[in-house]
C-alpha cells in the first residue's frame, strides 16, 4: 500500500512505502489451523447430510436396531471424552513446564484414543462378519463413510500424537513444540465435537427410528 502526501506546493506527490511489519514465527498458526478445522467441519457436514438422506434406505437389509449395541457405543464415547480431558491435563502441565507430566498425559490420551479405535474396529469387524458390509445398503454405505472418516481422523491424530511425543522427548517444550501441541489439542477436541454428532444422529437416533 502506498500513501500519497503532498506537503509541498509544487504539486509533486511524495510516496512512502508502508512498512511490512515483521511477524514472530507462528503468530497466525492457530487462526490458520482453526480455519482448517472449519473446512474439515464442512466435510463432516456433507457426510452427515448424506447419512441423513440415505440413513433410512436399508434395502431390506439390517437396520440400526439390529446392528448397534448402544452400551458399546457408550463405552466408546466415554473413551473419547476421557481422552479429551487427559489432553486438557497435558496442556495444563505444559503451561507449567512440567515435561514429564506432559508426556505422561499425552501417553494416556494416546491409550484412550487407541481404545476408541480398537472398539470401533471391533464393531466394524462384527458388522461385516454379519454381512452388514458397506455394499449391503445405502444406509450402510453412508454409515461406514461417516463413522469411518471420523475414525480415520482419530487414527491420524494418534500418529500426530506419537510424533509430537518424540519431538518433545528430543527437543523439549520449545516454542515450536508448544504451538504444535496446541494445534493437536484443537484437532483432538474438534474430533470429540464431531463424535457428539455421530453418537446422537447415527447411533441414538438410528436405534430410535
Amino acid at each position, binding site marked *: 500500500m502506498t500513501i500519497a502526501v503532498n506537503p509541498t506546493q509544487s504539486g509533486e506527490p511524495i510516496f512512502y512505502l508502508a512498512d511490512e511489519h515483521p511477524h514472530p514465527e507462528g503468530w497466525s498458526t492457530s487462526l490458520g489451523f*482453526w480455519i482448517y478445522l472449519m473446512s474439515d467441519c464442512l466435510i463432516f457436514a456433507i457426510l452427515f447430510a448424506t447419512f441423513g438422506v440415505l440413513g433410512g434406505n436399508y434395502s431390506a437389509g439390517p437396520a440400526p436396531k439390529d446392528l448397534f449395541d448402544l452400551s458399546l457405543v457408550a463405552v466408546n464415547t466415554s473413551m473419547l471424552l476421557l481422552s479429551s480431558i487427559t489432553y486438557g491435563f497435558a496442556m495444563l502441565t505444559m503451561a507449567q513446564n512440567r515435561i514429564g507430566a506432559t508426556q505422561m498425559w499425552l501417553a494416556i490420551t494416546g491409550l484412550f484414543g487407541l481404545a476408541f479405535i480398537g472398539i470401533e474396529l471391533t464393531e466394524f469387524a462384527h458388522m461385516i462378519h454379519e454381512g452388514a458390509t458397506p455394499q449391503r445398503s445405502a444406509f450402510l454405505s453412508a454409515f461406514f463413510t461417516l463413522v469411518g472418516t471420523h475414525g480415520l481422523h482419530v487414527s491420524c491424530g494418534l500418529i500426530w500424537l506419537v510424533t509430537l511425543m518424540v519431538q518433545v522427548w528430543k527437543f523439549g517444550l520449545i516454542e515450536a513444540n508448544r504451538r504444535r501441541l496446541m494445534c493437536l489439542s484443537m484437532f483432538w477436541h474438534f474430533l470429540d465435537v464431531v463424535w457428539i454428532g455421530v453418537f*446422537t444422529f447415527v447411533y441414538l437416533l438410528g436405534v430410535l427410528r
Partner: protein
Amino acid sequence: MNTDTHAAHADHHHDDNSHGSLSTYLLGFVLSVVLTAIPFWLVMSGALPSKQITALVIMAFAVVQIVVHMIYFLHMNTKSENGWSMMALIFTIVMVVIALSGSLWVMSHLNSNMMPIHQMTGMK
C-alpha cells in the same frame, strides 16, 4: 501506528498460551459426562413416551454439549484472534445449516414426489 501493531501481536501471542484452568476443564468434563449420559439413558430405557419427543430432547442435548465443548475445551470466545475465529465459526455454522437442512428438505421432497414403482410398471 507501527508500534501499536507490534504490541497487539505480542499480546495476542501471549493470549494463545492460556489454555484454561484445571477447574474449567473439570467443569467441562463433568457437564459433558452428564450431557452424554442422559441421552443414552433416555434411548436405552425408553423413559419418554414418544419417539419424537425423545429425538428432539437428545438433539437438544447434543447442541448444548457441542457448545460446552466449544467453550471449555476449545476455549472459544469472541476475543481470540481479534474475533476472526468466531467469524470463521459463524460462517461455518451457516454453511453447515444450509448444507444439512437443504439436503434433507430437497431429498425428502424428491422422495415423496417419486412415482411408486407399481404405478410406473403399468404405464406404457
